[in-house]
C-alpha cells in the first residue's frame, strides 16, 4: 500500500545523502587529513600534529580566536535577547504577516551587500559622521575606529543588523502557534507583569520552536567570511577570514595550518552549540526554581523598552545602509563632509554594463537552477513522508540542518579537491551542486511547517473521491500550497544569491555572480560600482519575495482562504 511512498523516500534519502551529506563528509575528511599533515600533492604523507603547532604559532592566532568568539557568540546572544524583547513589546500590535512584509528587505539583502552599506554609514567619514560634521565642526573625519575596529564591534553590529530581523521572523511565526493572548491574560490575572509573563510563560514555549534557527545563527556568526572582511578588523582578522587568507597564501605549505584552522572552526561551532544546549539545561533548572519562588518582579518593562529601542536603531542602521547603496550607485563625486553627492551620474550603471549584466545573468541562472533542484527535492521528501504516512524522524531533521551547522570553510577546500578527484571540474554545475547543499535546507525548513499544517483530512477527502497520489499532489496539495512554495523559493533565491565561498571555491572563480563581484569590488576603491552590484544583489531576492506575495494574490484573487498571510517563513 505504501510501496511507492517507500520508493520515493528511498530515492530522496539517497539523493540527499549522496548529493548533500556525502560532499560535506568527504570535504571534512580531506580537510581533516590536511590538518593532520597529510597532503600528497605537497609530498606530505606522514601523520603529524605540526599543522596544529604551526597554527598556534601564527601571529595573531589568539586574537583571531578571541575575535571570533566575541563577535560570534556576542552577536547571537544579543540578537536573541533583543529580538525576544522586541517581540514581547510589540507582539500584540504586529501580525506575523505585517512583520514578514516589514522584515522582507532585511532578509532579502545578502550579508555582503548589507556590510558594504553599513561600512559607509558607520565609517568616520560615513553618513552619520557627515550628518554630525556641521554640529561638531569637523572638516576632516574624526579619528574614531568605527569600522574595522580592533574589538570587532562594527562586525558585531553588522551581524546583528542581519540576524535580528531573521530571529524576529522566526519568533513571530513561533508565536503564531501559541495562544499568547490567553496565556498573557492568565498570567497577568495572577499578578505577573507583562514582561515577566513573557519570560516565565511564553519564552519557555517559544524556545523549543526557535532552538534550531538560533543554532544556525550562531554557526553562521562564528564562521562568517564576507561580512567579516568588510566590517571586521584586518590585523588580525577573525579566525574564518584568517583561515581563508591562509588557504590562499602564496606559500602552499600554509594549506596545512589553514586546514587545522578550518577544523578548529568546525570544533568552535560544535562547542558553541554544545554551550547553548548546556545553557538551556542550566536555565531550565534555575528557571524552575525561580518560577516556584513565584516572584512577581514587575520591573521587566524597562528591559523590554531598551530592547525595542535597540532593535529600532539596528533596523534604522540597516535601512540607511540599503539606501546608501542606491545613492552611491548614482553618485559621481561625493567627498567628506557632503551629506549628498556633489555630482550625480548613471555612469556606474552604464560603465559596468557588460560586467553587471553578466553577473546578474549568472546569479539568476544559479538561483533558478538551485531553487528548482532544492524545491523538487524538498517536495519529493515531504510527499514521500505523506505517502509513507510517516512523520519526520529526528535523525532526518538533523540531516537537513547539518549543512547549516558545519562551517563552509571547514569542508570547501577538501570538497574542491574531492570534486576534482572524481572528475567533476569546476564550473557552473559544480557551483549549482555546492549551492544546493546550502539552499535545500532553507527551502526544506521554509516549506515543512506549512506543508504539514495542511489538514490531512483534506487529502483523505481527495483520496476518497478517487484521486490517486499523483492527482492528490498536483491538483490539491501544490495549488493549495502555492504561496508557501513560492515563499520557500524566494528564501532559496535569497540564500543562493548570498553564497560567497561555495561560488568562489567550486566555480574556480570563473563563475562571477553579483556577490563574488560585490565582495571583490568592496576591496577596490570605487564605491559607486560596488553600489551598483550591491543594489542588484539586494534587488534580486527582494524581487523574488515580491513575486511570492504577488503571484498567489493574483492567481488566487477570488479565493479568500488562500490570500491570507503565508503560514511560515524562516
Amino acid at each position, binding site marked *: 500500500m*505504501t510501496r511507492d511512498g517507500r520508493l520515493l523516500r528511498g530515492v530522496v534519502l539517497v539523493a540527499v545523502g549522496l548529493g548533500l551529506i556525502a560532499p560535506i563528509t568527504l570535504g571534512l575528511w580531506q580537510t581533516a587529513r590536511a590538518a593532520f599533515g597529510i597532503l600528497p600533492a605537497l609530498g606530505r604523507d606522514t601523520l603529524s600534529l605540526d599543522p596544529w603547532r604551526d597554527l598556534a604559532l601564527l601571529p595573531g592566532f589568539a586574537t583571531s580566536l578571541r575575535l571570533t568568539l566575541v563577535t560570534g557568540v556576542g552577536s547571537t546572544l544579543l540578537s536573541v535577547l533583543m529580538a525576544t524583547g522586541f517581540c514581547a513589546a510589540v507582539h500584540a500590535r504586529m501580525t506575523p504577516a505585517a512583520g514578514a512584509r516589514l522584515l522582507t528587505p532585511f532578509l532579502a539583502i545578502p550579508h555582503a551587500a548589507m556590510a558594504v552599506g553599513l561600512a559607509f554609514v558607520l565609517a568616520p567619514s560615513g553618513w552619520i559622521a557627515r550628518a554630525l560634521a556641521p554640529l561638531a565642526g569637523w572638516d576632516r573625519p574624526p579619528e574614531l575606529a568605527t569600522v574595522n575596529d580592533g574589538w570587532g564591534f562594527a562586525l558585531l553590529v553588522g551581524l546583528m543588523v542581519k540576524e535580528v530581523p531573521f530571529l524576529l521572523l522566526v519568533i513571530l511565526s513561533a508565536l503564531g502557534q501559541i495562544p499568547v493572548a490567553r496565556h498573557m491574560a492568565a498570567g497577568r490575572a495572577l499578578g505577573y507583569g507583562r514582561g515577566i509573563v513573557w519570560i516565565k510563560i511564553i519564552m519557555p514555549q517559544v524556545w523549543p520552536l526557535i532552538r534550531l534557527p538560533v543554532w544556525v545563527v550562531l554557526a553562521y556568526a562564528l564562521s562568517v567570511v564576507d561580512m567579516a572582511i568588510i566590517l571586521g578588523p584586518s590585523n588580525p582578522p577573525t579566525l574564518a577570514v584568517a583561515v581563508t587568507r591562509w588557504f590562499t597564501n602564496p606559500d602552499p605549505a600554509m594549506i596545512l595550518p589553514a586546514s587545522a584552522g578550518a577544523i578548529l572552526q568546525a570544533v568552535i561551532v560544535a562547542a558553541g552549540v554544545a554551550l547553548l544546549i548546556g545553557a538551556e539545561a542550566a536555565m531550565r533548572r534555575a528557571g524552575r526554581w525561580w518560577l516556584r519562588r513565584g516572584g512577581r518582579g514587575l520591573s521587566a518593562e524597562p528591559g523590554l523598552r531598551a530592547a525595542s529601542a535597540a532593535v529600532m536603531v539596528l533596523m534604522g542602521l540597516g535601512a540607511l545602509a540599503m539606501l546608501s547603496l542606491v545613492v552611491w550607485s548614482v553618485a559621481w563625486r561625493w567627498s567628506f563632509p557632503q551629506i549628498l553627492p556633489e555630482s550625480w551620474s548613471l555612469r556606474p550603471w552604464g560603465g559596468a554594463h557588460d560586467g553587471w549584466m553578466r553577473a546578474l545573468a549568472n546569479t539568476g541562472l544559479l538561483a533558478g537552477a538551485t531553487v528548482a533542484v532544492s524545491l523538487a527535492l524538498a517536495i519529493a521528501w515531504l510527499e514521500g513522508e505523506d505517502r509513507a*504516512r510517516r512523520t519526520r524522524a529526528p535523525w532526518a531533521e538533523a540531516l537537513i540542518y547539518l549543512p547549516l551547522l558545519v562551517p563552509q570553510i571547514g569542508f570547501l577546500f577538501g570538497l574542491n579537491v574531492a570534486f576534482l578527484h572524481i572528475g567533476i571540474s569546476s564550473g557552473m554545475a559544480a557551483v549549482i551542486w555546492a549551492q544546493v547543499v546550502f539552499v535545500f535546507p532553507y527551502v526544506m525548513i521554509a516549506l515543512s511547517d506549512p506543508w504539514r499544517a495542511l489538514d490531512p483530512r483534506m487529502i*483523505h477527502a481527495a483520496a476518497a473521491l*478517487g484521486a490517486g497520489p499523483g492527482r492528490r499532489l498536483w*491538483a490539491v496539495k501544490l495549488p*493549495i500550497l502555492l504561496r508557501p512554495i513560492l515563499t520557500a523559493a524566494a528564501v532559496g533565491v535569497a540564500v543562493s544569491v548570498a553564497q560567497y565561498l561555495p561560488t568562489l571555491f567550486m566555480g574556480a572563480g570563473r563563475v562571477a555572480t553579483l556577490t563574488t563581484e560585490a565582495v571583490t569590488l568592496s576591496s577596490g576603491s570605487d564605491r559607486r560600482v560596488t553600489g551598483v552590484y550591491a543594489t542588484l544583489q539586494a534587488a534580486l531576492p527582494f524581487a523574488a519575495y515580491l513575486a511570492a506575495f504577488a503571484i498567489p494574490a493574483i492567481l*488566487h484573487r477570488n479565493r479568500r482562504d*488562500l490570500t491570507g498571510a503565508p503560514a511560515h517563513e524562516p
Partner: protein
Amino acid sequence: MSLDLEALCIHAADGTALFAPLTLHVPAGSVVTVMGPSGVGKSTLLDSIGGHLAHGFRLSGKVRLNRRDVTDLPAETRRIGLMFQDALLFPHLSVGDNLAFGLPPALRGRAARRAAVDAALDQAGLTGLHDRDPATLSGGQRARAALMRTLLADPAALLLDEPFSKLDAALRGDMRRFTFDHVRARAIPTLLVTHDPDDAALGGTVVALTGHPTA
C-alpha cells in the same frame, strides 16, 4: 451493496489494540452508528476502513465491500466516500470545480460533466453558485456542497465522522435529514461515528465501541 467488517481491530505501534475486535454488517441504504467515548479511536476506525491509516498502526481483520475484500487496496480505488465535521472543500477550486473533482472519469464530455455538477448543485439548493469561492459560502451551504461532492464520486459506501457536530442546532437537523435521505435513496451502506445521541436516534443500528481493557 453492503459494507462488512470482520473482526476488525487496530493495534498501535506498541502492539496494544485500540478497541475490542469489531464485526459489523452495514446493509445497503442503512446507517449504522458507532458511538463511544472520545479517544477510543472512532476516527482511526474510519481511517482504517477508508484506507487512510497512519504509519505505525497495524490492522487485523477484514473490510469487505459487496463481499469483496478491500483491506489492502489503496484509498483511491476503494470507492468509499468520506465526510468530516468540516466540509473541507478545496480552497483553491470554485464550488462547481469542487463537485466536479469527484466525478468518475468514465463520465465523458464537458457538457455532460457540467450538467451533472449543475444537477447536484440544484439538488443541494446551491443553484447558480458554480463559480463561487467556497470560503464565501455559509456553513450549511458548505456542508451540502461537500456531501454532493462525495455523492458525485458514486461511492459504494459512505463513512461519516461526526459530520453535523459543527453546525448550529437548527441546521443540524436539516442536514442530517438531507444526508440520510440521499443515503437511503441511493442505497449506500453508511457508517456514522458520533457522540451526539440525536445522530443515533435517526439512524438504524447503534454499536458501542468500547476501549480495550488495558487502554
